[in-house]
């Protein structure tokens, strides 16, 4: 008898435990106040985030935050937690304030080890900041920036190929533009699509980049495919002022992976930065990366 009563009580409790959409909507004014400086909003548990996105909109939860590469570049974060959860990615951050509103717990965190980006390459994927070319001896050429037909697959298709973009050849996938891929946890990662060409290398040149102590970034391929492919490794060479500062190699199955190269000797200067992407066999090498100078 006790089992039945306990289960009924549990059913009634858990079915009412999580806030409903109207409660998320009602929370918006408070969140607007607390995250007024365009701060990172972290919703936990992560499954509740769609409710927050609907309620708060793109202004408070822009794509660049939702599909961030990591949170170490943010100085502050507002954590919106339900069901007594707390966000793993904010471990080690310092709690500034905390308040409860209905079934929400809102905590403002300070990142004690913030590494503010000097330059986010993802935010400059357009002329004149960026020029793109395929380097392949005689066949190479510049990639023109302009509108293109937006396309995407279904589950088994490619990520969205946006418009406008740098179009490098008649092959639809041979372009450079920001898109979103999924990482090994199927979480979104915003990055620069840089599919290596069949021959030679894809070169992305960012002019006038303020250089700091390092270039930090992440790279990967859509994990839904990367997990099952056995394609050739993809290599990314990073050059500052025509000097190689580091090489990153990505093998299938590694997922979204970080890289970091010292640029100490150029610190404080403004220099062109080049990313050269190449592979031995280009089939299905849907390489995508993001990087920042710090």
């Amino acid at each position, binding site marked *: 008898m006790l089992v039945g*009563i306990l289960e009924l009580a549990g059913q009634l409790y858990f079915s009412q*435990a999580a806030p409903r959409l109207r409660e998320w909507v009602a929370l918006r004014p408070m969140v607007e106040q607390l995250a007024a400086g365009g701060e990172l909003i972290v919703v936990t548990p992560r*499954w509740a985030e769609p409710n927050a996105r*609907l309620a708060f909109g*793109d202004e408070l939860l822009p*794509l660049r935050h939702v599909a961030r590469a990591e949170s170490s570049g943010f100085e502050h974060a507002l954590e919106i937690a339900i069901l007594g959860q707390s966000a793993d990615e904010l471990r080690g951050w310092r709690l500034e304030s905390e308040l409860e509103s209905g079934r929400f717990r809102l905590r403002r965190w300070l990142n004690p080890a913030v590494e503010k980006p000097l330059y986010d390459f993802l935010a400059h994927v357009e002329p004149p900041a960026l020029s793109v070319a395929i380097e392949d001896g005689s066949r190479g050429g510049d990639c023109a920036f302009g509108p293109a037909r937006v396309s*995407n697959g279904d589950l088994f298709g490619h990520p*969205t190929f946006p418009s406008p973009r740098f179009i490098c050849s008649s092959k639809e996938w041979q372009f450079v533009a920001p898109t979103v891929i999924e990482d090994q946890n199927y979480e979104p990662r915003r990055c620069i699509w840089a599919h290596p060409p069949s021959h030679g290398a894809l070169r992305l040149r960012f002019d006038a980049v303020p250089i700091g102590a390092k270039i930090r970034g992440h790279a990967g391929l859509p994990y839904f495919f990367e997990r*099952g492919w056995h394609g050739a490794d993809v290599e990314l060479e990073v050059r500052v002022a025509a000097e190689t500062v580091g090489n990153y190699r990505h093998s299938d199955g590694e997922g979204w992976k970080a890289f970091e190269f010292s640029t100490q000797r150029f610190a404080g200067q403004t220099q062109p930065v080049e990313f050269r992407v190449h592979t031995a066999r280009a089939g299905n090498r849907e390489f995508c990366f993001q990087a920042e100078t710090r």
Partner: protein
Amino acid sequence: MSAAPQQRSLTERGAETRESTGTEPPPSVARGSRWQRCIDPAIFFALFAGYLGALLGSVKNLGYARDEGFYFRAASSYGKWFQLLWTDPQQALRASRVDSLWQENHEHPALMKSLFALSQRFFEGVLFEERGTAYRFPAMLLAALSVALIFAWGRRTYGRAGGLVAAIAFAGVPSVFYHSHLACFDLPIAAFWLLVAYAYQRSFETRRLLWGVASGLLYGLALETKHNSWLLPPALCAHVLLQHVLTLRRPWRRNWWRVRIPSALVFMLLLAPLVFYGLWPWIWRHTYERLVEYAQFHLQHVYYNIEFLGHTYFEPPFPRSYAWLLTLATVPASTLWLAAVGGIASARSYLCERRERARQRAAAELPKECPPQPASREPARTGAASLWLLCIFSSYSVWLSSGTPIFGGTKHWLPAYPFLALFAGAGFAALQRVLARLLEESQTARLRRYRGWLEAALAASLLAAPVTMTAHAHPWGLSAYTPLVGGAPGAATLGLNRTFWGYTTGALQTQINALAPENARVYIHDTALDSFKMLQHDSRLRSDLLPWTTVAGSSLALYHHEQHMSRVEHMIWVDYGTVAPARIGALDGVPVVLLYQRPATPAPDQ
């Protein structure tokens, strides 16, 4: 078959069996007045009609599942053949016509799709306005029959109240209620498992040829429903062996020939293949090749993705704990607890009876710790409980291999649930006996007068949670989880699959109709094209909407959440220029299906 002259002792045992197991009903259902005799049939029909009514009454907001779309298409094709058979039999039986019309969805046998077709042909516009409901009706009938049959079998075995509890416990599993609505095969194959097992058990008990023939015919229908049926004969054979191992005297090597093979197994071997062959025109030609193709399709089935504890599995090895843990997470704990009590009570009853017989043989007195249990009719020798246990084990057995695909959530071991419910009924019967003993030992005689009320309160307390849970979960049956894992929110936090099959489009049909511009293209994501079209045919979705299979070019986009499908939502974000869904369909605050609307101008920040 049964054996020869020197079988005297076995025959005696047979008589003993009938005596001890009683084909006569338990005391609680003993024959009495005419009114008394009507109660059980009345309950049977009330359960049947009540469950069917509940299904029909709740069907309108349940969207069409992905696989239903494929079966609608197949049923439509088979329906054309039936029509042709009616008007021009000669033409219908021509090989080219058979092949062309039965080719559709030939990876599954034809029974249910044929019934869907006939139901649509005869009931659409007569009984049902919606074509989808007409297609779904045969599966609903089988679901309702299962509920009623569980009552009947439970009543025969341990009494009316236990049978009633068993039937409601089965109906009160949220995933059972969900699958009971669908024009699919998962609930029908569970129903046929139950029907075959029941007929087999009756054949075992009574040795009447009629039950043997019924077993054969029903097993043919089971084979013709879904390939889970392949797992049933091992359970029945194991049951025969188990019963004889327990009965035969040593040395077994000298006694093996005494094993009596029930007629049910013989007719299953003789009749079932004929039924299977006769009802599936696709295998009338190239029989061997097509059967091999059918078997290989399922034995080498592709691996779909499924999330379990936060990880998406898409290739072996799959976790062996999947089926068991998911059962714990989706079947109400009250039912599982009752089933465990029932299992223990059945085992205890069996052991006591065995000891009793052994002592009787040694001319000893009955042991005091094993008093006769009049309410318990669990027959040791006909072994209903061991049959149920073997059916449960057989249903789950394929998931002992880490190579068996785990997609499909709980639906693939659904045939185990009727037997689980029967054990739950046995558990309730055991609790009844405990209650009766407590009342008898009680000092207060007045309390005994309330025995019926106390039993009703006990049943209500154990069934309230399952029934509440099931009612609450509709129409989100696949997203429902029990309090053991924290309900839907707890399951989402644990990383258990939230939904599949794209049926939750039905939960947002009103919002889609309200938001879509005229002639809008709607990206349908996991909803099958034919399922979406059926929603339109049934006027649930506007007919001017155009189902669209890519995000690009659509005005509205659906996203049914599964972990590995998140990439589809990411496509929508980049294409639409927004991460904010326009509407969300949720169970208990947990988003299950999202509807995006392409903004007039994308968000500036994208």
